[in-house]
């Protein structure tokens, strides 16, 4: 029986549920030192002095490094994504002249135990000269606000406009223009496991092994190689001159990369880099020096990542802390360990979604939506996330804003504003607020035109008869953009009679019922021109490589550069490999997370790439190995390779299973030196078209008008991610995303006071929804095939989070609209609900509205 398509039980569960998983906190190299960072207590201040003398005498302390000491031995982190009009500040490992947020690291204490390091960290005396804080977008946009980054234009790091189609003409000729201003609050990606890094130093060779909780092991390896442990340039040049092999290997790899990615690289323009270098000339200097460093380095670190307790984008980055830790470890020649605590994590482990969005729709009276204008401002926080953060989110939002609808024209202005808060990172569906704002205003438009939300969407949405088509912003659409089919199915699943009776019952009992829906499509991974639309040439990073091996004893091992951190790769990839190889799921072992063993991937796990790209690579690698095995078996069985079948691990001539061979027998017949009888490396960058995942979310809310409590008696999702590898795992992904969306609207808010002091630094104040807050979520599947056929898996990791905030807020407005409510904020705690319903007055002092 084929395993793909079955709800096979997760093979990782046994290990994880028995508590035998191995997380970074479980790694303890001999003599490891525990690191604690000294962090700023001011949101914005100059550092006058740091006195670590008393702290240095504290019991158990081995060494304290100030920011200046670490930065003298490391390079600042350089921008990865350079967009026209974007200035990305260079970021030092630790802050040494100025702090820009509460929690900004200014020194690191290394001690024999964590407790001793915490004791000493309290004794480090930092004198600050406070500056005015920039706590929010409005302050940051003011020309007289205190400037965070000297080389920026005020606090605006990016101000860019794009126009697609004849926007002015369309807006002038439309029957009406409807404008609304929406505001989304700061949220935090909250993995159950915080960030953490152990830098293990081999006492003999000095080789670094980086144990990390990372979504992208190879990026971490290169980041540390590039930024940590700066050497004298002369040394690098000398090494480069003397180590011919190293230089040759590097240049060969670079040449392969440029050849493999010729098409993508041809698209890239230099406008972004030119703007960046104009703003900060040192970018170029650091780039050149770092390039030399990388060329001259003989020994790159090994990154090892095993079990990871979630990430949601927050672990897709190389942290400033990582660079400081590696720099200290290299300098001391000792292993060091840092496990982030929850206060650090809630302060700077990753924030997202704080955005103001003004949106106008040009619409005709018959409901034809013709044009859209968007003005987006993102609260960027103090430091840019590395390698990607707010700038990438704004670029994706621009591409996806028109959604599944046939607009004639679209324009968008995007601004990033620096504030004295935690960094904005990619958070599951990093662009999700385009869906939220668009689907919100479509409901507003529908109400004004007295149409139903479903009716206006159906009228304007692309359908299969339109394919192939293209979004105004560039990406091509094919049949896999099946959003309309998901909406049509969702409409069938709504029981109008039941809804009417529930609604009447609620109103008779001091409650209000509402129904909301939201539709979207997402690139999962999308067609190649999707990457070009975001940033020309960015497709060069999309390759995934997998390696399948049959060892000489017949065991089957698949190597992936994906970094599982909750997505169930161990199960789904084993399903794919087992089907290709004709074996059972227990016969396949997956290896990930060790950069010495796994193939290179620039991006690792993120961006809905695991199923389509990682899955495709592993499928075709396995298919090729199966062919090699079949060829060998054919010669052993004196048969034609075309007649070889492999069923349940029995390799035989079709029709004569009793005379078959095992993988061990075939592999054993191949002489090997390295123990690998058969192997194949497979590059894969997608099918070359389609690649859209789609869904419609439907949410019913039941609101208590006395307490403002929002219940969700029904929530369902109709999703289409193409052929499903494992339905139970897809359901889990969708439900987990919806749970985060429920958290976003009803519970989670990262709050700062007017001086930019964080107010939500424990789980008593940053409210994660728990099992009791999450209703049952129905998931219905469509499995649209693309015209291209083979390997049609599409990503499903982000969608739940993309659709949920829109569906829930639409439902709440639907429930409260008869009371005059208009929902323009995404965060709707009970106080806000009662304010919207006109039951209590907004509180002047709370500042929450």
């Amino acid at each position: 029986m084929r395993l793909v398509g079955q709800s096979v039980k997760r093979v990782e569960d046994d290990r994880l549920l028995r508590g035998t998983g191995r997380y970074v906190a479980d790694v303890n190299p001999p003599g490891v030192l525990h690191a604690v960072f000294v962090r700023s207590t001011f949101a914005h201040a100059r550092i006058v002095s740091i006195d670590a003398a008393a702290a240095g005498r504290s019991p158990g302390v081995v060494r304290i490094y100030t920011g200046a000491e670490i930065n003298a031995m490391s390079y600042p982190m350089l921008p990865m994504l350079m967009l026209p009009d974007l200035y990305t500040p260079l970021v030092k490992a630790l802050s040494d002249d100025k702090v820009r947020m509460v929690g900004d690291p200014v020194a690191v204490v290394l001690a024999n135990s964590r407790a001793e390091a915490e004791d000493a960290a309290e004794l480090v005396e930092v004198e600050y000269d406070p500056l005015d804080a920039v706590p929010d977008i409005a302050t940051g946009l003011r020309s007289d606000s205190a400037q965070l980054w000297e080389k920026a234009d005020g606090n605006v790091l990016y101000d860019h406009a794009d126009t697609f189609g004849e926007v002015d003409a369309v807006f002038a000729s439309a029957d009406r223009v409807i404008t609304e201003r929406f505001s989304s609050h700061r949220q935090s990606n909250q993995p159950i496991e915080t960030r953490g890094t152990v830098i293990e130093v081999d006492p003999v060779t000095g080789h670094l092994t980086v144990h990390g909780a990372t979504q992208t092991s190879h990026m971490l390896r290169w980041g540390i190689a590039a930024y940590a442990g700066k050497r004298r340039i002369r040394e690098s040049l000398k090494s480069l001159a003397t180590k011919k092999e190293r230089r040759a290997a590097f240049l060969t790899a670079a040449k392969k990369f440029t050849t493999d990615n010729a098409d993508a690289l041809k698209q890239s323009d230099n406008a972004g880099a030119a703007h960046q270098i104009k703003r900060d000339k040192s970018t170029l200097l650091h780039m050149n020096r770092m390039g030399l460093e990388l060329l001259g380095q003989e020994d790159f670190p090994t990154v090892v990542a095993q079990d990871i307790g979630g990430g949601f984008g927050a672990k897709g980055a190389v942290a400033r802390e990582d660079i400081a830790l590696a720099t200290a470890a290299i300098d001391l020649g000792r292993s060091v360990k840092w496990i982030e605590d929850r206060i650090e994590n809630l302060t700077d482990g990753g924030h997202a979604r704080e955005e103001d969005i003004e949106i106008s729709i040009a619409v005709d009276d018959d409901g034809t939506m013709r044009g859209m204008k968007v003005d987006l401002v993102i609260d960027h926080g103090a430091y840019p996330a590395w390698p990607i953060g707010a700038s990438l989110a704004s670029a994706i939002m621009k591409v996806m804003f028109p959604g599944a609808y046939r607009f004639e024209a679209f324009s968008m202005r995007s601004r990033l504003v620096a504030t004295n808060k935690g960094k904005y990172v990619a958070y599951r569906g990093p662009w999700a607020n385009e869906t939220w704002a668009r689907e919100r205003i479509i409901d507003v438009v529908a109400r004004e035109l007295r149409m139903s939300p479903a009716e206006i969407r159906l009228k304007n949405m692309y359908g299969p008869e339109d394919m192939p088509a293209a979004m105004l912003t560039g990406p091509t659409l094919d049949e896999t953009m099946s959003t309309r089919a998901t909406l049509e199915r969702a409409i069938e699943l709504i029981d109008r009679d039941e809804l009417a009776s529930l609604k009447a019952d609620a109103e008779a009992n001091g409650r209000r019922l509402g129904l909301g829906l939201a539709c979207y499509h997402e690139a999962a991974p999308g067609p190649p021109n999707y990457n070009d639309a975001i940033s020309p040439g960015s497709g060069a990073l999309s390759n995934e490589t997998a390696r399948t091996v049959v060892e000489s004893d017949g065991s089957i091992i698949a190597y992936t550069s994906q970094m599982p951190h909750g997505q169930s790769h161990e199960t789904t990839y084993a399903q794919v490999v087992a089907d290709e190889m004709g074996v059972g799921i227990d016969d396949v072992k997956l290896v990930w997370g060790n950069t010495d063993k796994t193939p290179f991937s620039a991006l690792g796990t993120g961006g809905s790439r695991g199923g389509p790209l990682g899955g495709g690579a592993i499928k075709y690698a396995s298919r090729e190995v199966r062919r090699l095995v079949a060829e060998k078996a054919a010669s052993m069985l004196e048969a034609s390779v075309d007649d070889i079948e492999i069923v349940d691990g029995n390799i035989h001539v079709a029709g004569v299973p009793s005379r078959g061979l095992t993988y061990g027998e075939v592999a054993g017949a191949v002489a090997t030196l390295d123990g690998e009888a058969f192997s194949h490396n497979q590059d894969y960058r997608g099918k070359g078209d389609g690649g859209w995942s789609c869904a419609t979310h439907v949410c019913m809310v039941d609101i208590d008008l006395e307490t403002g409590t929002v219940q969700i008696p029904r929530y369902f999702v109709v999703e289409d991610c193409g052929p499903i590898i494992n339905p139970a795992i897809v359901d889990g992904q969708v439900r987990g995303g919806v749970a985060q969306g429920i958290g976003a609207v009803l519970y989670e808010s990262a709050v700062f006071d007017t001086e930019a002091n964080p107010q939500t630094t424990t789980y008593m104040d940053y409210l994660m929804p728990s099992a009791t807050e999450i209703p049952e979520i129905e998931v219905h599947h469509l499995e649209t095939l693309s015209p291209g056929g083979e390997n049609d898996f599409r990503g499903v990791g982000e969608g739940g989070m993309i659709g949920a905030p829109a569906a829930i807020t639409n439902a709440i407005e639907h429930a409260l609209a008869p009371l005059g409510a208009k929902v323009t904020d995404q965060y709707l705690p009970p106080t806000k609900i009662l304010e919207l319903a006109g039951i209590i007055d907004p509180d002047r002092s709370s500042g929450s509205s």
Partner: protein
Amino acid sequence: MKAPPFEYHRPSSLDEALGLLAELDEAKILAGGQSLLPLMSLRLGRPEHVVDIGDLGILDSLVVEPDGSVRVGALVTHRQVETSAEVAAHAPLLHAAAPMIGHRPIRTRGTVCGSIAHADPAAEMPAVALACNAAITAVSSRAAREIAAADFFEGYLQTVIEPDEIVTRVQFGPWPRHRRGAVVEQSRRSGDYAIIGLACWLDIEDNTITDAALSFFGVSDTPIRVAEAEDVLRGQAPTQSTFSAAGRTAAGVLRPTSDIHASANYRRHLAAVLTERGLAKATAESGETR
């Protein structure tokens, strides 16, 4: 999140514990540890000495006295109270409040007396003690004294307990036959501290409210009884409109503040809502059970 250095003591008798408290500066008593230990790990609490009373078996009794009063020793957990049929019968407010506290693992460690002594104004047990005017016994090497709950709470996490005293028990007086009570609260999530809560009871004789208690939590720096609203209830019939009037009075008297979880206006509004709901629940439940 490691506690700053402290010295740990685990006395084996009450006298030894009292001796330690008398002689040590900056000592804190550890019972269930559900508030103290997180505060220490966050380095918000920095006792130099921690005196663990876990071995003092004398403090672990949960007893119903012959007169029907309920005596809760210092080591009795919320979970014991929650699962005791005797507590349900003789101290119904205590029993009703217990399941609202945190989550089950917290309730199996956290103690009733510890919660009262900690005096978090948003916690259930201090408000229940105040509603019932429970008697709190504090013992030191100098003396033993009994403090009425009404005199016990002084401010945010502040009580009249002296540094050398241990709260050894809290005693809930006999629950009158004609008394009906309920605990209601509004929290952001199940298990959270209440945004606002109410422990209340009514004495009803001949369809007339003869006495009442409205003890709110989460709206002031201590649990707080609203005498003006209780006055509104006395002498009236236990009807919806009486309850509403009391609720309006409570909302008018209370001066809650805003925080990130709810605005002051929200809390004031909820004071009225919870008064109505709490009193309705008290009277409805009594109808079912008695």
